[in-house]
């Protein structure tokens, strides 16, 4: 009898802890809900406009799951970009995830079965939110997992919803694709303010504009990305010497 009581108390404590973690994760994920709902739906609508149905938006969002690159991918899917251009763009655009992952080497490695899911669901937003957690141990890992899982579902759900809404309501959505531009500008400003060394950003702008003038809008991305990263390697090497 006594033993059972102890068991019950233990169980109650455990579920309360789980509910607490769930609630904390949900609250932490609210800013992400806001931006993913808007951007995800815009993504779904744009996919639909490009002739790519809602289930492709859903599938891409669950698998590729990187907001900024998915927007660029719409143009690649509907246009005639070469697989090489797509691969190089994916490599360079998403390389920042590698550096995000470095931040969480220890955390994710202590999360057992959840580790590879955490790796897969690393985005600009989950990185930013999970960086601000101050808790430790299972409370920290549980919250991180809830934030990651919810964000993934918000994004995929919003993308599918956008595709369906775009199909049902023939709203004139001309100009909504600007939300991708706006997203990149805000990230650009955040990155600009984080560092005193503005040469990389200015190099990217200068080379991008120059390549656009030389190669034109459909093929300038590949040379821009390659020359920019090559130049940074040279600058980085010189600064070290």
């Amino acid at each position, binding site marked *: 009898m006594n033993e059972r009581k102890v068991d019950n108390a233990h169980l109650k404590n455990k579920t309360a802890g789980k509910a607490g973690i769930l609630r904390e994760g949900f609250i932490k994920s609210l800013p992400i809900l806001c931006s993913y709902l808007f951007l995800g739906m815009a993504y779904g609508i744009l996919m639909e406009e490009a002739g790519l149905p809602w289930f492709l938006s859903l599938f891409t969002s669950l*698998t590729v799951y990187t907001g900024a690159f998915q927007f660029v991918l719409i143009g690649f899917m509907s246009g005639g970009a070469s697989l090489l251009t*797509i691969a190089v763009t994916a490599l360079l655009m998403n390389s920042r995830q590698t550096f995000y992952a470095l931040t969480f080497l220890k955390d994710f490695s202590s999360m057992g079965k959840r580790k590879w899911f955490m790796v897969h669901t690393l985005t600009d937003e989950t990185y930013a939110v999970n960086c601000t957690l101050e808790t430790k141990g299972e409370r920290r890992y549980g919250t991180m997992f809830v934030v990651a899982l919810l964000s993934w579902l918000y994004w995929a759900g919003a993308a599918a919803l956008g595709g369906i809404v775009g199909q049902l309501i023939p709203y004139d959505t001309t*100009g909504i694709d600007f939300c991708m531009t706006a997203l990149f500008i805000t990230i650009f400003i955040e990155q600009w303010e984080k560092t005193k060394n503005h*040469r990389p950003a200015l190099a990217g702008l200068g080379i991008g504009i120059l390549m*656009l003038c030389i190669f034109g809008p459909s093929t300038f991305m590949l040379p*821009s*990305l390659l020359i920019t990263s090559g130049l940074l390697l040279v600058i980085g090497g010189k600064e070290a010497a």
Partner: protein
Amino acid sequence: MERILLIILLSTAITFSLRALPFLLFRGERKMPEWLERLGSMLPAAIMAVLVVYCLKDVRTDPAHKGIAELIAAAVVVIVHKWKHNTFLSIFAGTAVCMIMMRIFV
């Protein structure tokens, strides 16, 4: 359709590999080489700059219609973001302005 599936698979493979790379390379105490760390600190800002140019490429090809609308909206994003530093608000305001401007500069 096959091409699109191939593109999705390729993108998934590359993106997942990039996210998983540190977990495969730096198991235990092995440290990141210095040049890679420097590249990592500079690359994101530069790539984002190229992407901003990519997004605003219509300023060159269609300056009187989409170009001007996007330039005005881009200025709105910069001002709103500098003012409030709220990503959602900046994106929402910029997109709304762009949609309105594209109906003005037809």
